[in-house]
C-alpha cells in the first residue's frame, strides 16, 4: 500500500501533428475516468487533471511539446502507460 502513495512520473512528447486536440483529449479523459488513481499532466508548470476534458483542452499542448505525466494511487502504472500510448500515437485515427 505504501508504495502506491509514491508519485510515478514520466515525460512524454506530443507527436500527433494536431497537438493534444479534441479527439485525443476526449479519449484520454474517458479512459482516465476508469482509473482510481489521481493522474495529472504538466506543461510549462501548468498542471491539469487528466480526467478533465476541459483541463486537457486548455493545456493546449502543441506538437513537439513535452508533457510530464504524474500519477498516484493503486493502478497508476497502467494509467501512465495508457496516457503514453495515447500521446505518442501518431495516428490515433487508425486505432
Amino acid at each position, binding site marked *: 500500500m505504501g508504495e502506491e502513495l509514491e508519485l510515478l512520473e514520466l515525460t512524454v*512528447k506530443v*507527436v500527433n*501533428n*494536431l*497537438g*493534444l*486536440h*479534441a*479527439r485525443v*483529449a*476526449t*479519449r484520454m*479523459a*474517458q479512459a482516465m475516468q476508469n482509473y482510481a488513481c489521481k493522474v495529472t499532466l504538466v506543461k510549462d508548470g501548468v498542471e491539469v*487533471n487528466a480526467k*478533465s*476534458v*476541459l*483541463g486537457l*483542452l*486548455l493545456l*493546449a499542448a*502543441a*506538437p*513537439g*511539446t*513535452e508533457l510530464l505525466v504524474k500519477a498516484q494511487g493503486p493502478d497508476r502504472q497502467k494509467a501512465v502507460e495508457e496516457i503514453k500510448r495515447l500521446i505518442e500515437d501518431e495516428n490515433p*485515427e487508425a486505432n
Partner: protein
Amino acid sequence: MRTPKQIDRKRPADLAQPLDNDANKVMKGLGVSGGIAIGQVIALERLSTEIYPQRILKPEEVTGELRRFESAVRDAEAQLKQVKKMIGPGHPLQNHLYILDTHILLLEDRMFFQGTQDIIVSERQNAEWALSTIISTISAAFDTIEDEYLRERARDVHFVGERVLRILMGYSEKGSIRQLPPNSVIVAHDLSPADTLQIQKDSVLGFAIEMGGRTSHTAIIARSMKLPAVTGLENISRQVQTGETIIIDGSTGAVILNPDPETIFRFRQHQEVYRNYHQGLMTFGRLPAVTSDGAGSVRIMANIELMDEIDLALDHGAEGIGLFRTEYLFLGRRDLPSEEEQYEAYKHVVGACPPNSVTIRTLDVGADKIASNLNIEAEANPAMGLRAIRLCLGRKDLFKTQLRAIFRAAAHGCCRLLVPMISCMTELRNTKEIIEEVKEELAKAGQEFDPDVRFGILVEVPSAVAIADLIARETDFFSIGTNDLIQYALAIDRVNEHVNYLYDTLHPAVLRLIRQIANAGQASGIPVAMCGEMAGYPVNIPILLGLGLGELSMNALSIPMVKKFIRSVSMEECEELTTRAFEMSAAQEIRGFLEDWIQERFPQDYFIDQS
C-alpha cells in the same frame, strides 16, 4: 486556399442586372468548403440565448436551483446520447462521432458543472446567469491559446453551454433538422456538431452560417461530406426566409440571396465546371505531366502551408511539395517555435511524401508579424523591409533553430532548402556560411541529420534575376516566385485596387525575366522550378514549358487541370507559342493570343475562365 481561375469568376455583382432591388443581394463570407449550391433556404431558427434571465436567488431557492441545473444537464446529456444512437455504423460521418463524446464529457467536467453550481451557491445567481458566467470564464481561458485549431475548441464549450441554457429557458428543440425538404441550403447562426451529425446528406446542398471559420465543426463536416459551405455571414439569418432561393459558392465565399434567372443560369454553368473538374479531372492527377509528343516532362508539385493540406495535395496528384511555407509555425503567437516543435512539423511533411520531393522554405515574413518580443519598430514599408532572409540573417539564433530543425528532419526522407528574398551574392554567401555552421554543430552534437540537403533560392527580387547567372553557380536549384517578382518588377501593390489591374503574368517583362532565370539555370545545369501562382493556370503553361522549366508547384486544386493541359499539348506547339508570344509587346495582346489559341484548340475543355 485560393482556387484555380476556372472557379475564380468576377464578383457576382458584375454578373447580372438585378430585376428589382430585392434580387441578387450579394453577401461575402469565408468559403470553407468548395463547390456551388443552388437551392432553397432552410432557416434554422433557434431562439437566441444571448439574453437570459438574471436574478439573485433567495437563500431558500438555492437548493431548488441546483436541482434545476442538474436536471437540465442530465437532459442535455440525454439529448446528445440520443443523437449518438441515431448515427449507426456505416454512417458517413462515423469518424466525427467522437465530438459528441467530447460534449458529453464537457457537461460532466468539474470546471463546467461544479463551477456553475459553486456560483449558484456562493453568488446566489440563477442557473442561467451562473452558467453564462462560467462559459465566459472558460472561453477567456481559451483565448490565451496560440494555436488556432486548439483555440477554436472554445466553441465546443459554447455549444454545450447553449444546449443547457436552452433547456433551462424552456426552449424546445424546434424544427427537426432531420426532416428537410430536398435542395435545402441550411442558413443558421451556428451549427453544433450534434446538428451537423444529424443532417441527411440527400436533402442538404450546402451551408450558409454566421459563425465559425476554417476549423469550425461546420467547415470540417462540410468538407467531409463534400458539401459547399460559407461561414462568417454576419446576420444572414435575419435577411432570409425559409423557401427563398439562394446561391452559395464555397470556394469564393460569395452568397447570393434571391438570385434572378440569369444569375442562376450562370451559376449552374459554374457548377457544371466545378463538378466536371472534380469528377473527370481527378483521374488526370494520377498521370504524369508529359506532353502529347512525349518530348516534354514536368514535375508537378503542390504549394502548402498547413500540414493538413498534404493529403489534399497528394490526392490531387502532387508528386511532392514544391513549396512548404513555414510561417504558420511562427504566426499568431507570442513566442518563437522551438527547434523540437519545428522538427516534428518538418519531419511529418517529409515523411508523408515520397523521398526527395519536399522543398521547405525558410521563414518569409517581416518582424512585425512574429513574436512581439523581437523589439523591432514598425516599418513604413514592410514589404521591402526587414523580412525573410534579411530578418533571418539579422537574427541568427532564430535562423539557426529553423535550419537545425530542417536538416534533422531531412534525415527522414530528404528535402530541399529554399531561401526567400535573396537580393545579392553577399546575402547568399552569408546564408551558406550559416548553413555550414549549423551542419558542424549538428555533427559535433552527434545529431542525426542529412548533410546533403540541396540549397536553392526563391527568385523574386529583380536584382536576383539580373545576377541569376552568378547566383546559379553557387546554388543547387532555382524556384521562381512570380507573385512577388511581378509586384517588385512592375512596381505594383497587388492588393491596391487602383493599380492591381496592371498585374499580369503575361506581361512581356515578366516573360523575359523568367526566360533570363531559366537560361541562367540551364547554363549552370541546375533545375529551375516555379512556385508562384502563375504555374497553376493553363494559359501560362505553354510559355513555361517553352522556356524549359522542369517543375511547377501550385495550389493542389489546380493540379489535375494543369496535368490534363500538359498532356494535351505538344512541346512543338509550346515552343511555337513561346516564340510568337515573345514577338508581341503588350500583355493584353499575348493573353488574347494564348486564350484564343487554347479555346480553338480545345473547345470542349474549361482551360480558360469562361466568365
